C-alpha cells in the first residue's frame, strides 16, 4: 500500500472538517459543468438528428425554384459540373389546408423520404405525412382528389406515410407534404383522362418542372451565378442553400440557437464558480497563514505549499465537475428535447453518453481552479516565514469618510459593524453583489419569458383581433349571413389565409391574410392599396414601414407597400384588404367572430361547427388552452432558468453566509459573553448580507431585460413572435425570491449562533 504524504492527509482532513464550506465549491462546479455539458449534449444530439435525416434522405445542398421550366439554369448547372435533379413542386389545398406536392423523377436519388411505412412494399407511389391522414381521417389505400396546376383534377391512392427532410415541422402548424414519383402521377392522370397519351403527358409535365435539386462543391458561387444571370426576368423564385430553405429554416435556426445557448448560461455559471472558488481560497489562505509559515519554516518549497492548497480545490472541483458531466447530458437534452419533439418530426437516435468536449469542459474548470488558486495564494506564499508565522494579518481600519459622518456614528452598532465589514471584506462584498445580480437577472429573465409570451398573446387576442370564436371553412364559400343569424353573434369578419413566399431582403415562407374591405373584429386600421405586416415576418425579410415587399399568390408576383408593422404574436404574415385583389373573387377560408357576451362563446362555436362547409369552430377559451399547450416547452425552460437562478442564489449566499459565520465566530462568542440575545447577534449578520442582496438584486433587475432578449432571440419559436415585456410584479417577485432566499439562509445561520461555544471560541486568538 502506498503511504500517503502528511500533506495529502492534511488535504483530506481539511475537506472533512470544513465540508459545509466546501460543499458550495462542489455544487457550483457541478452546476457549471452540468449546464455546459447539458447544453452541449443537447446541441450535439439535435445536430446529429438533423445530420442523420439529411444523410439518410440524401438531402441536396441547394434548391433552385423557378416559375416554370428554365433551360438556362440547366445549361449553367451542366457547365459548372453540378449534379442535379429536376422535379415539379406545386401547392394545392385539400380540405381547406395547404398541401405541397413534390413530383420527383422515378429514379430520384435526392431528398428522399427517410422513414416510410407502406402496404405491400411498393417501390414507388404516393406518400403523405402522418398528420395529413389524421387531419383528413384518411388511411393508407384511400383515394383523394387533387387539383393539378395544369387544370386537371385527378384521384390519387395513398401508398404509405413518410417523414421527409423538407417537411420536418409538425404539419398542424405548416402545410402537409405529398411526395410522389412521376410514373404514379402519369398513371393517375391517364386513369382519369385515358384519351391523353403517356408521351404527351410526360412532355406536358416536363414543362412544369420548376425545381432543381443541387449537389456538389462550391454551391454558393453557383447559386450567385444563377441569381445574377436570372435577375432580370421574373422566372427565379429562389436559389437557396439547404439551411436557408423556407421548409428548413426553422429547424436549422433551432440548431444554431442550440449552439449559441452554449455561450450564455454556462458562461454565467463558470464566472460564478470562479467567484466562489476565489472567495473560498482567500478565506482558507487567510485562515492558514500561520500554517503556511510553519510549512515554510519546516523547509517545504513554495511549489509544494501551493500544490497542497490547490489540490484541495482540485479535488472538490473535480468531484463537482464529474457529477456535472453525468447529470448534464442526462437532464438538459431531455428538457430541451421536449420542445424539439413538439415542433419537429425527428427520428429516435442513440446518443453517446460520453463526448470528449465534456472532458474538455472539466479540464477547463480545473485549469480555472488552478489559475485562481495560484493567483490568490501567490502573495501569501511568497512571504517570508517570519511574517507568515505571525498569523492572520491584523485588520487595519482607517477612519474613512463614512466613519466621520455623524449619522453613521449614531447608527446601532450592529449596523456599523455590518457596514465596516463590507468595506473590510470588499472581495466578498463584490461576490455577494455579483452572485445575487446574476440570480436576480436570471429570475427576471425567467419571469420575463412568460410575461413576453402572454403579453404578445393578450395584445393580439384582446387588442388587435379580439375575437370570441374563430372558424375555418372547408369550401372557400361565404357563410357570413348564416353565422350572423345565430343568436349571440354580434360581428363576423371573414378572411382568406394562404401560404405564400414573401420577399424583401430575404425570402421566407409565411401567410397572406386577405381581409374584408371593412372589418369589425380586426381592430388594426388598414387601407385598400397597402399591407400590414407582422413584426416577426418584417424582421425576417428585413423590411420596415413604407418599404415595398414582394409576394407570390395565385401564380402571380405582387408588390405592395407596407404601411404598418404590427406586433402580432400568433398571426404571422402580411395582411391586405381584399380590395387590393379586386380582380379576384373573395374566397374566405375562415372568420373571426365576436359574440354579444362571453357566455355565448361555446354555444356559438358548437352551432357553427355543425354547419355544412365549416371545418372547425373554436372558442377563444379553447384557443388559449391550445396556445398554453404549445408554449408548454417554453414554460419548462422558464422553470429551469428559475430553478437554476435560485440554486445559484442558494450556493452564493450559503457560501458567503458560512464564510461570514466562520470568520466571526469569535465576535459572536464575544457578543454572547456580553449578553446579547440570539436575534441581536443574528441581526448583525443579516444586515450585512441582506443589504448586499438587495443591492445585487436591484442591479440585477436592470440586466434582466438584456438577458431576456439574448435568451429569447436564441430561442425563437417559428409559431410565435416575441414582444419583449416584463410585468412590474415580475420585478417584485424577483426581489422577494432573492431576498427571501437570503433571509432564510441567514436566519438559519442566525439561529446557529447558539451553537457557538463562548468558552471555546474565546480561549485564544487561534
Amino acid at each position, binding site marked *: 500500500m502506498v503511504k500517503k504524504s502528511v500533506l495529502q492527509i492534511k488535504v483530506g482532513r481539511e475537506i472533512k472538517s470544513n465540508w459545509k464550506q466546501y460543499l458550495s465549491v462542489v455544487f457550483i462546479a457541478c452546476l457549471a459543468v452540468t449546464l455546459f455539458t447539458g447544453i452541449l449534449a443537447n446541441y450535439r444530439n439535435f445536430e446529429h438528428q438533423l445530420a442523420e435525416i439529411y444523410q439518410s434522405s440524401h438531402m441536396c445542398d441547394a434548391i433552385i425554384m423557378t416559375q416554370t421550366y428554365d433551360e438556362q439554369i440547366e445549361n449553367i448547372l451542366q457547365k459548372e459540373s453540378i449534379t442535379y435533379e429536376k422535379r415539379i413542386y406545386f401547392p394545392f389545398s385539400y380540405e381547406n389546408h395547404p398541401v405541397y406536392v413534390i413530383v420527383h423523377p422515378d429514379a430520384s436519388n435526392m431528398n428522399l423520404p427517410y422513414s416510410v411505412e407502406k402496404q405491400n412494399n411498393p417501390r414507388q407511389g404516393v406518400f403523405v405525412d402522418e398528420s395529413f391522414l389524421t387531419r383528413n381521417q384518411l388511411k393508407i389505400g384511400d383515394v383523394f382528389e387533387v387539383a393539378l396546376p395544369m387544370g386537371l383534377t385527378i384521384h390519387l391512392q395513398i401508398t404509405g406515410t413518410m417523414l421527409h427532410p423538407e417537411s420536418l415541422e409538425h404539419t398542424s402548424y405548416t402545410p402537409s407534404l405529398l411526395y410522389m414519383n412521376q410514373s404514379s402521377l402519369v398513371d393517375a392522370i391517364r386513369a382519369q383522362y385515358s384519351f391523353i397519351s403517356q408521351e404527351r403527358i410526360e412532355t406536358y409535365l416536363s414543362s412544369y418542372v420548376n425545381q432543381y435539386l443541387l449537389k456538389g462543391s462550391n454551391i454558393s458561387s453557383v447559386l450567385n451565378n444563377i441569381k445574377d444571370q436570372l435577375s432580370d426576368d421574373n422566372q427565379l423564385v429562389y436559389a437557396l442553400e439547404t439551411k436557408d430553405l423556407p421548409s428548413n429554416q426553422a429547424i436549422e435556426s433551432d440548431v444554431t440557437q442550440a449552439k449559441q445557448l452554449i455561450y450564455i448560461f454556462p458562461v454565467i455559471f463558470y464566472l460564478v464558480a470562479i467567484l466562489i472558488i476565489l472567495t473560498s481560497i482567500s478565506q482558507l489562505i487567510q485562515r492558514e497563514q500561520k500554517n503556511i509559515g510553519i510549512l515554510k519554516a519546516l523547509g517545504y518549497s513554495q511549489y509544494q505549499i501551493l500544490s497542497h492548497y490547490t489540490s484541495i480545490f482540485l479535488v472538490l472541483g473535480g468531484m463537482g465537475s464529474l457529477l456535472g458531466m453525468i447529470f448534464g447530458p442526462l437532464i438538459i437534452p431531455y428538457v430541451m428535447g421536449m420542445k424539439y419533439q413538439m415542433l419537429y418530426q425527428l427520428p429516435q437516435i442513440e446518443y453517446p453518453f460520453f463526448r470528449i468536449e465534456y472532458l474538455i469542459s472539466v479540464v477547463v474548470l480545473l485549469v480555472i481552479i488552478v489559475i485562481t488558486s495560484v493567483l490568490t495564494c501567490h502573495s501569501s506564499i511568497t512571504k517570508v516565514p517570519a511574517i507568515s508565522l505571525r498569523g492572520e494579518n491584523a485588520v487595519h481600519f482607517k477612519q474613512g469618510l463614512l466613519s466621520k459622518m455623524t449619522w453613521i456614528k449614531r447608527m446601532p*452598532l450592529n449596523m*456599523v459593524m455590518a457596514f465596516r*465589514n463590507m468595506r473590510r471584506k470588499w472581495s466578498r462584498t463584490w461576490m455577494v453583489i455579483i452572485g445575487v445580480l446574476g440570480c436576480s437577472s436570471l429570475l427576471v429573465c425567467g419571469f420575463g419569458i412568460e410575461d413576453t409570451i402572454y403579453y404578445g398573446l393578450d395584445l393580439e387576442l384582446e387588442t388587435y383581433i379580439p375575437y370570441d370564436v374563430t372558424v375555418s371553412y372547408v369550401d372557400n364559400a361565404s357563410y357570413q349571413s348564416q353565422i350572423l343569424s345565430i343568436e349571440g353573434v354580434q360581428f363576423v369578419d371573414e378572411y382568406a389565409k394562404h401560404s405564400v413566399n414573401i420577399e424583401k431582403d430575404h425570402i421566407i415562407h409565411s401567410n397572406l391574410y386577405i381581409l374584408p374591405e371593412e372589418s369589425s373584429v380586426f381592430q388594426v386600421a388598414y387601407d385598400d392599396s397597402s399591407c400590414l405586416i407582422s413584426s416577426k415576418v418584417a424582421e425576417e425579410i428585413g423590411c420596415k414601414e413604407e418599404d415595398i415587399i414582394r409576394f407570390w399568390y395565385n401564380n402571380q408576383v405582387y408588390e405592395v407597400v407596407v404601411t404598418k408593422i404590427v406586433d402580432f404574436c400568433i398571426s404571422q404574415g402580411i395582411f391586405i384588404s381584399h380590395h387590393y385583389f379586386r380582380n379576384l373573387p373573395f374566397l374566405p377560408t375562415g372568420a373571426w367572430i365576436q359574440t354579444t357576451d362571453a357566455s355565448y362563446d361555446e354555444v356559438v362555436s358548437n352551432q357553427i361547427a355543425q354547419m355544412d362547409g365549416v371545418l372547425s369552430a373554436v372558442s377563444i377559451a379553447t384557443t388559449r388552452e391550445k396556445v398554453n399547450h404549445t408554449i408548454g416547452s417554453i414554460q419548462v425552460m422558464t422553470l429551469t432558468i428559475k430553478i437554476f437562478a435560485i440554486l445559484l442564489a442558494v450556493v452564493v449566499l450559503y457560501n458567503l453566509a458560512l464564510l461570514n459565520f466562520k470568520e466571526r465566530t469569535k*465576535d459572536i462568542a464575544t*457578543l454572547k*459573553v456580553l449578553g*446579547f440575545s440570539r436575534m441581536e447577534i443574528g441581526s448583525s449578520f443579516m444586515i450585512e448580507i441582506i443589504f448586499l442582496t438587495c443591492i445585487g438584486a436591484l442591479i440585477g433587475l436592470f440586466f434582466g431585460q438584456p438577458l431576456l432578449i439574448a435568451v429569447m432571440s436564441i430561442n425563437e419559436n417559428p409559431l410565435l413572435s416575441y414582444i419583449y415585456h416584463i410585468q412590474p410584479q415580475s420585478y417584485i417577485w424577483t426581489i422577494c425570491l432573492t431576498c427571501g432566499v437570503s433571509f432564510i439562509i441567514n436566519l438559519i445561520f442566525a439561529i446557529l449562533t447558539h451553537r457557538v461555544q463562548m468558552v471555546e471560541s*474565546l480561549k485564544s486568538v487561534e
Partner: protein
Amino acid sequence: MPFIELKEITKVYGQKEIQIVALQQVSFALEKNELVVILGASGAGKSTLLNILGGMDYATSGSYKMNGKDITQLNEKKLAQFRRRQIGFVFQFYNLMPNLTALENVRLSIEHLKDVEDPKHTLEMVGLGHRMHNFPSHLSGGEQQRVSIARAIVKKPDLLLCDEPTGALDSQTGKHILRLLKSISETGKQCVVIVTHNASIAEVANRVIRFSDGKLVSNQINLHPKDIEEIEW
C-alpha cells in the same frame, strides 16, 4: 448573606465513557469590594470556574448564588440577561471587535442598558481619552486590554471577571492594568476576580483561592496586600 456563594460546584466534561472532572465539589463565598485572585496551574480548573461564575457555562451539580439568586437555575435567555447586566469580562486576548473603534467597543456592551457610565468618561478613566476613535488594530496590547476593561466596567457590573488579564502583556503594562483593576475593586461596589497562573499577582489581592486538579486547595484572606509597585513580575 455573602455576595457570591458557591456550594459543591462540580463540572464534568465528556460522555459516559470518557469523563473529565474539571471542578470537584468547589465551595467558597466572596464579598463585594474584594480583589480575588484565583491561582492554579494549567488544567487546574480555574477557567472553568470563571466560566461558571460568568454564566458562560453550566455547572454539572451544586449551586451558585449571587445576591441570593440561584444562577445555576437560569435558562439560556436569563443567563444572557445576567451576563449583560451583572457581569463584566476581561479576556487574556482582549476580544475586541476589530471593526469597531475603541469608543464603539465600549458602547457595544451598554446598548439597551440603563444606569451605566459614560463610555467616553470610562475610556478617559482608563487613560485612553485620546485614542477613543482608534480601531483595535491601531492600539497596543496594553491599550487594547484597557479598552477591554473599559468595556467591562462601563456597565457598572456587580462582578468583574478577568481571565489572565496580564498574560499577554509586558511587566510595566501588566502592572498598569492591575492598578486599574485594584482601583475598581476599591470603589466598594464591585467584586473583581482575576484568574491567573502568575503567583506574584496574588500578593496584591484581598483573597487568594488556589486550585489543583479541579479541587479547591486553599482559600486565604490576605490581610496585608502588597502595593502593585512592590511585586516582582
